[in-house]
């Protein structure tokens, strides 16, 4: 099944996962690229996005699998036609004839920007390094069945750096588990609020940069 790599930035980050699927279904139609449809009572065009992205998070590494109904179109042409049919902020970067099995996708490189409106506290960088250097940082997570489970988030962070971007912002850059188990990067910002309330940022926002398999090879 063909796969495409796309980015989601700017105002498009506010589009939800389900809305994004519908947006792509329509974009394929506008681009004159008919998709195969599922079976069933009300057949829908089939597209599938690898790791659903939370609303508000930007990304340069989203994968979408699709299947064209009809003649194949060269990858480069498909990319151009789709980009003409998409909205600002959603952009196809690459089209592949075939992708790797999604189950081999396991790591995500991401940033969490921490904004302090009255300036970054002096002890913040060292404080955060200490926090994420601990053996165990427990955070509550809601399971699918609605139960609350404690999750040790540092066990899911393979690497992390803390750096000061400017006088009002810090940046966490981390390589984290994104499948079995999954760490939502916003949990790192939430952990600061829980364990170091004095270092709670005024605003935190997250970005996905790249995805890898378990051997840290870029995943496509």
């Amino acid at each position, binding site marked *: 099944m063909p796969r495409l790599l796309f980015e989601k930035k700017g105002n498009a980050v506010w589009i939800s996962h389900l809305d994004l699927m519908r947006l792509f279904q*329509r974009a394929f139609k*506008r681009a004159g690229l*008919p998709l195969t449809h599922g079976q069933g009572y009300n057949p829908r065009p089939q597209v599938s996005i690898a790791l659903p992205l939370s*609303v508000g998070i930007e990304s340069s590494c989203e994968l979408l699998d699709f299947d064209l109904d009809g003649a194949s179109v060269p990858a480069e042409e498909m990319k151009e036609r789709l980009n003409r049919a998409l909205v600002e902020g959603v952009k196809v970067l690459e089209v592949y004839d075939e992708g790797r099995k999604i189950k081999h996708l396991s790591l995500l490189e991401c940033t969490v920007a921490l904004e302090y409106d009255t300036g970054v506290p002096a002890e913040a960088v060292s404080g955060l390094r200490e926090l994420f250097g601990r053996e165990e940082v427990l955070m509550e997570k809601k399971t699918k069945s609605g139960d609350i489970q404690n999750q040790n988030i540092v066990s899911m962070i393979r690497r992390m750096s803390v750096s000061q971007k400017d006088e009002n912002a810090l940046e966490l850059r981390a390589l984290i588990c994104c499948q079995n188990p999954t760490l939502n990067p916003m949990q790192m910002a939430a952990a600061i609020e829980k364990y170091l309330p004095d270092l709670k940022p005024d605003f935190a926002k997250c970005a996905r940069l790249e995805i890898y398999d378990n051997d840290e090879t870029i995943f496509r």
Partner: protein
Amino acid sequence: MTELIQRILPTVQKPARYTGGEYNEIRKDPADVRVRVAFCFPDTYEIGMSNVGMRILYGVMNEMDGVWCERVFAPWGDMEKAMRENNLPLWALESHQCVKDFDMVAFTIGYEMAYSNILNMMRLAGIPLHAKDRHDLKGIVFAGGVCAFNPEPLADFIDFFSLGEGEESTVEIVALYDRAKAEGWSKDQFLTEVSKIPGVYVPSFYEHTYNEDGTLAAIIPLNGAPARITKRIVEDLDNAYWPTKMIVPSTEIVHDRANLEVFRGCIRGCRFCQAGFSCRPVRKKSPEVLYRQAVEIMEDSGNNEITLSSLSTSDYRGLKELTDQMIPYCEQHRINLSVPSLRADNFSRELMEKLQTVRKSGLTFAPEAGTQRLRDVINKNLTEEEILTTCANAFAGGWNNVKLYFMLGLPTETDEDVLGIADLAYKVIKTWKEHATNKKRGVRIHVATAYFVPKPHTPFQWEQQITPDEYLRRCRLLKSHFYSKSIEYNYHAPDLSRLEAIFARGDRRLGPVLEEATLHGARLDGWDEYFNYSIWFDAINKCGIDPDFYTTRGYGEEEILPWDIIDVGVSKKFLLRERHRAQEGIITPDCRHGCAGCGANCLLKEVECDA
């Protein structure tokens, strides 16, 4: 401001409705723009983006050189709260600029319960509520839509109204503003000139005086303002603007599909229906043009559904020709073709079978009244036999879901008419028992009743609304006669319809009520989550208004009505004749069986009424 919005967005539901940036959104370089219009829809994005009128006028204004029209919607409660906490004024989706910085602020008003949103949006934008407190040409506020056919409750707040279809008049209005701005006119100078455009009503140019009993004594035009304002219409729909490059929302809206209007006006003459009279005369659009536009919209938007809209689509003469062309196209491109408001005739039945969408939605009928007698009174030309025959066919075809919509409190209604609704529901069950091919799954009959609201420009514009207590008594009476598990009965709470009735036939004395209620938090009244009758009740009391004056009193035939100076084409004499026929239970056949002489054809100069 944009940075602030970015921080608020993660905290609210469905943030995509506040950002703009959809496919086909129109952006212009402010340096090339002379007139900026903030087009406000007084409800949420999901409702407003489903509104065809707004899509048309958005396109019409943006086709104008030097004019940029942007969209503004009412925020949901969570966003409104965040805006107030952060002093964030209402913004337009395209440029994210504050509404108060625009040259013109336009509202389109489709239903009375949006009035509170208009005032609330003006407050959120930081625009002075009263027209008299806005002194500059910049930021002039105007409004259109069906509610403009009785605009008096809003007279204090809106500088001028544009009556009727806006494709042509909006261009004339905005072009005049363009000139006024260039030549440095005052607001008064502009209002004087704009009032000369046919279809434009400037409320401050009229004085209302009242009799001791509270009825209107006179409507006095000042400074040579026209004595009557006639609504505008588009005569040639084939050559009128139609938005084939529609904005495709990036988030789900109420009617998430492409839309094609097949004709305007209505031949039916149901006596309670405001649109049926105020949208006359009937003007056709040719199937060739419609098919061409349908293909254009579908190819451009990528939508998977298109609906053929009008007040009564099965009355469109070209329906067979159009659907014969569209069905193969839609099948080939996997598009759902939806044809609402089909009637129970043979062709419609065949068409329904061909259309995929019917399988999803089941059958819906709006008999409106339970007995043939009362259906004759309201001139609803739908017989029990038609309903039952259509049901029989549908049940035989495997459907098992029927919705029946009625109104309670119609003129001359008796308990016998109320119980006729129950009888009809049982006849539908009996029909199912006789015709259903698969009885294992049972049958579901949904019955819903609404509280009749008399509307201006209809034969029932003089009628009394029954009291809320009487309405509830009739609801309970009906409910006590439903004992089958197959029937689900829902009735609307009376408060909203009573308020709707007050404003529908309201006058200028209601302005303070709107101001008071919105000051105390009234907004989003069309939403159960927010509608709070006690706010309105308090405001009505505080302003010394008697709600019964506008509702249960009824209006005298000799009385001056607040909307008398507005001419929608249909004559008052005709409405009165229809009222008297209703009282005698005499039907008026639809316009194709013979012209009933409503008068709306007088609005046409180039073409004939296509009824």
